[in-house]
């Protein structure tokens, strides 16, 4: 026999399980509906975010990394995550619930390739990061200004062209000059990059794909806690 509070706890746990399942399956309408129901039943917004949406996306990210899911499945899960967040966000303000961290992303000057960078943005958002996507062909000054204004935890830079890769090093150098490098995690990615090149350009880590970027961002931020 269970007490009333146990039963209520179990019901909420079931609701969170349903939320994670719907998110995993990319059912955006259902996710929004379950988030609403959880709120109406008194569940804390921060708990819905961390134990429902973020935990669900963690599972998606893990299964993508392990080759069980395909990118389109990740994208629809991320879409479902956004649908849930739209319902949740008005309740998060003032609730004390925080994102995993703030991320600024962009493709460096002279480069207009953005498929990889966009995937990183989607997966970062899905994992619970707040993402500011600067877009393509962004100058050193654009990156520095964004870091100065938004004070992100992470800066991610992408390049597809061998000729634009060195621009990443210029950004890092400019951040150092401006006193903005310390405490900032700098990630680099792009098809022609290598770990050695990223290191030489001043990165904290090279990320070979979007899933690795999320894992790396989490690990590096944990290490700085």
């Amino acid at each position, binding site marked *: 026999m269970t007490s009333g509070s146990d039963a209520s706890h179990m019901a909420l746990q079931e609701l969170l399980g349903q939320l994670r399942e719907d998110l995993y399956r990319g059912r955006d309408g259902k996710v929004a509906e379950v988030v609403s129901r959880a709120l109406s039943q008194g569940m804390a917004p921060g708990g819905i975010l961390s134990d429902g949406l973020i935990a669900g996306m963690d599972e998606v990210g893990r299964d*993508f990394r392990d*080759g069980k*899911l*395909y*990118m*389109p499945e990740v994208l629809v899960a991320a879409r479902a995550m956004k649908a849930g967040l739209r319902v949740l966000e008005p309740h998060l303000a003032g609730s004390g619930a925080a994102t995993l961290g703030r991320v600024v992303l962009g493709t460096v000057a*002279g480069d*207009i*390739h953005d*498929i*990889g960078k966009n*995937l990183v943005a989607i997966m970062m958002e899905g994992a619970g990061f707040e993402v500011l996507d600067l877009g393509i062909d962004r100058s050193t000054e654009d990156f520095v200004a964004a870091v100065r204004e938004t004070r992100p935890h992470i800066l991610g830079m992408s390049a597809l*062209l*061998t*000729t634009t890769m*060195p621009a990443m090093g210029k950004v890092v150098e400019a951040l150092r000059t401006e006193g903005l490098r310390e405490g900032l995690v700098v990630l680099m990615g792009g098809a*022609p990059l290598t770990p050695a090149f990223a290191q030489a350009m001043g990165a904290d880590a090279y990320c070979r*794909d*979007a899933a690795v970027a999320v894992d790396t961002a989490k690990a590096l931020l944990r290490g700085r806690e």
Partner: protein
Amino acid sequence: MDPMVRPAFSLLQAEQMAFVHARSLEILSSTGVRVHSRRVMELLSASDGVRMDGDPANGRVRARFQEELVEWAIQAAPGEIEVFGRRGEPAFRLGADRARFGVGVTNLYYQDPSTDEVVPFTRRHMATTTRLGHDLPHFDVISTVGIPRDCPPATADLFAVLEMAANTTKPLVLLVSNEASFAPALDLLEHIHPNLAEAPFAIPYLNPVTPLVINESTGDALVETVLRGLPVIYSNFSMAGASTPITAAGTLVLLNAELLAGLVVSQLARPGAPVILGSLPSFFDLRTLQDFYDPHSMMLNVACAEMMARYGIPHAGTSGSGMGWGADLAASGQLWMNHILSLLGKVGLVPFVGGSLGSKAFCPLLAVYSDDVIGQALRLVEGFPLRDRELDMDTIRERGPGASFMDSDLTLASFRQAYYESGLTPHLSLEEWESRGRPRFDSLLREHTLQLLADQAPLDDGEELVRKGEAFIDRLH
């Protein structure tokens, strides 16, 4: 009766090509292309057949093309292009010839043929790989094999071009990575060969950004090349499922529309400008996020070639390289599929053979192996004559059952050309193979490749060209 027996392969029926063309025109007139190049914007703005939206001042506009303009461009472009060797000798006519092969392209690494180790591509590698392509008989062009990473970025492209010119007399396909080096690279070639436009031995290769973006460096370089009177390859690279629709049909039509947009720009820059069009239709693994060649890539390559043949535009396609981890079975299968289909289809240039490990590393072993594959594929597609004189009926009649044909007149007249003899694979009996220590084919390929590299000697004018080119580069920088 046609006296020649020839294998044939065709893909698109006339109605299907008309469908692809109509849908391509629809994309160009409704969706259009985004243009980042001011030189291209100026050309398009001056045309009545283009509707421009957006503010050129912010560096990006959307251009939508009227059907009549596209049809005009198709008619205006030449159907054949004579390509020359560096010493002015005609090499082949694109658009009126079989598929022609080349080694390439823009690899960041070099896969050592002794050890399979992957090391950064250097200027020395550019010289030796160019020379390797020069020495292999079935390669007709040399594409920019790699990006020399031991040279400063500002001059790496120039030294690459110089080593290409100095180490072969075959035509060159030029890929310049640094947009600031594009015009200087052409200047360098014109410096060492002032009659470049009269007998072009170098063809710049340019990519738009799929889907439907003519980026600044590509647009500028396209106009620059055309105005210099050089032929140009305008080729797009797709990742089906990511940058184009996931289906073969959607990819084919979208890529075709992009190519037609590039054609229009070239013809507006100079009506009658020689342009070579084609695609590298890769797929995108949505699980591992790697691009790769699917069997449909090879089919799309042929379909694109057929569309270009319909338009009367010379074609440059994909080369089937990049799969595999060196000269292995995976790479071999792709090369075979590509080379046979290219020769059977209407493919023009197959310019980028030899890339490995996702086209990041040039593998000399693979280039040497491919040379042998091309030789066998050529043998296959040449077919055979079916005439009385080749039947040897007289010998059959005279010698009767149980006879030998080894000393018949026909055998004596043709035995040296009667079948393909590979320089790589000796015909060994089981006993011979055992007695030689059971050699593996890949070890023979390695020995042969290393010998080819060891035997390389500078071309007679190579050193002088390097001196002249280095002085030119010094003056620029």
